[in-house]
């Protein structure tokens, strides 16, 4: 087990290196000069050179890339071009906000969607199953943006149940978060239930289900005691893989409701050309993604004794 984890960690190094290289090439070599963008067109040559040196941009590209790798490896990420704030501080603050936006609907979504999918699996082949398919494919066919715009209009603007947008730190943030939570849960229903239904229906064709039928177990017992437990393995592992992306928050939601999470930080960094934020954040997410992928495989082996880690 430990040997397996160690080998997987070693294997993820070239991938993280590749991400760092790709991101570095994307943002450092092409695009406008951040020093000129920051100082404007009237800056003196002296101040330009000064800032260029402070940001390390006077170095040749390979040295800059090595510096970037060293920053990632030591988690000493440097400063933002715009605010001069430490990146670690910006990321920690943003991640907390993003998690408060994404984690509750993630958990509620799991519970709601599994319940609905189980119900559909119970009534498989009936008019309820067909209706649900039509409704959920329909819900997937509406743009994310349209959900946000209409929900904000109806529930915040017309009915005045929630504030239209904004954010406050601490528990005071709750009223601002409820509407985005609802939207995230509603949007996740279509794709999630579609996948879950397929997983459940595949399980109904397994041999152990036939055995359970043969020994006279009721449909309900088979569904909840046998199928649900077996189906949880692929379901849980799939959800674990998506956890790193929760850190990033929901860009669109943060943008729309003015919630200062990591997604919003990132979009702002794109518009202002804040390269340190863009590059470090991308690589950190990639590292988290690799780690959670490993965690998924370990959990999988733990939950399903037939799976051998090799």
């Amino acid at each position, binding site marked *: 087990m430990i040997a397996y984890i160690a080998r997987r960690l070693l294997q993820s190094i070239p991938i993280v290196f590749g991400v760092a290289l790709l991101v570095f090439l994307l943002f450092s070599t092409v695009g406008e000069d951040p020093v000129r963008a920051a100082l404007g067109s009237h800056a003196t040559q002296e101040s330009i050179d000064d800032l260029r040196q402070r940001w390390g941009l006077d170095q040749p590209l390979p040295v800059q890339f090595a510096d970037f790798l060293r920053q990632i490896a030591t988690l000493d990420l440097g400063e933002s071009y715009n605010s001069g704030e430490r990146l670690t501080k910006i990321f920690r603050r943003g991640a907390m906000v993003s998690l408060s936006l994404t984690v509750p609907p993630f958990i509620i979504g799991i519970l709601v969607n599994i319940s609905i999918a189980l119900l559909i699996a119970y009534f498989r082949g009936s008019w309820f199953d067909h209706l649900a398919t039509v409704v959920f494919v329909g819900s997937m066919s509406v743009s994310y943006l349209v959900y946000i715009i209409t929900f904000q209009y109806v529930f915040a603007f017309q009915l005045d149940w929630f504030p239209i947008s904004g954010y406050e730190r601490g528990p005071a943030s709750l009223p601002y978060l409820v509407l985005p939570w609802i939207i995230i849960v509603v949007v996740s229903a279509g794709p999630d239930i579609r996948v879950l239904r397929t997983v459940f229906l595949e399980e109904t064709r397994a041999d152990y289900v036939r055995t359970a039928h043969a020994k006279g177990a009721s449909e309900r017992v088979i569904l909840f005691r046998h199928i649900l437990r077996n189906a949880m393995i692929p379901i849980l592992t799939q959800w674990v893989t998506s956890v790193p992306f929760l850190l990033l928050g929901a860009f669109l939601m943060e943008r729309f409701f003015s919630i200062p999470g990591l997604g919003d930080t990132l*979009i702002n960094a794109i518009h202002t050309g804040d390269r340190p934020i863009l590059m470090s954040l991308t690589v950190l997410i990639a590292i988290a993604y690799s780690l959670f992928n490993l965690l998924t495989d370990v959990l999988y082996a733990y939950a399903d004794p037939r799976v051998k880690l090799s």
Partner: protein
Amino acid sequence: MSASATERPNTRPDEGSLGRRAFRILRRNPFALGCLGVVIVYALVAVAGHLGWLPEFQERVGGSYEPPSWDLPRILGTDIFGRSVLYKVLVGTRTAMTIGFVVAAISIPIGLGLGAVAGYYRGVVDVVVVWLYSVITSIPSILLIIGISHVLGKGLLSVCLALGFVGWVGLCRLVRGEVMKQKSREYVLAARLIGASDARIIFRHILPNVIHLPIVTASLAILGAIKSEVILTFLGVGIQDGDSWGTMIQDATGELAQGIWWPLAGVTVAMFVIIYALNVSGDALRDALDPKLR
């Protein structure tokens, strides 16, 4: 050998070539056929748009913000400048379908080619391809797309390139796995024994057995590209001039607060129909083409 093959009784109703069988299955599903028809109609609107046959959307057809009425140009109402919402939606259809097809045309060949080569040859090629797609999947795709289109500049082409560069990964993984499985099957061994070249084995023998993957992925790729364009445009890295569904939805945000719902309704319905049709078509094509579902 050949005698026994021809004498084999044709007992299964689904016998016949892949295409013929798929057509038979599709014909039994009129709803899916209707959806395929909808996709074709949208594609024709896009072609008409490129030929300049669509009505000019910049012209005024009435007053500012007229609600829908029974007159063709104003059937979906007018926008702030008195332009026809219907004509704008049609021009947006051209943009959306163009992006969808160009992205599919970029990502499908890359995914199919790299997947087949990696799965067939394994070794160093495989390591490099797997590394490449692992790198791309470790970056949240929307971030990578924004990054690429930020670097390439704003506009239709860079959105297409960015979506295409990111979109091949899923198909590549599927094709690689399937080719690896097919490679150890007897028919491939037999083909190699009679001296078929690698290219012949891949294209003539293995490819027909995995061809359902790119076809099904294509409909999902088009759908994903259409949805992504709207989001990229909203985030300010997509299309800048006012002839896409993304810019229309962006404008609609402010308009809705003034009670002007028809531009948003027009775009939403147009988008809903094509994405629903692509979803259903993708499922139907998979049911008809996937050899495992026989």
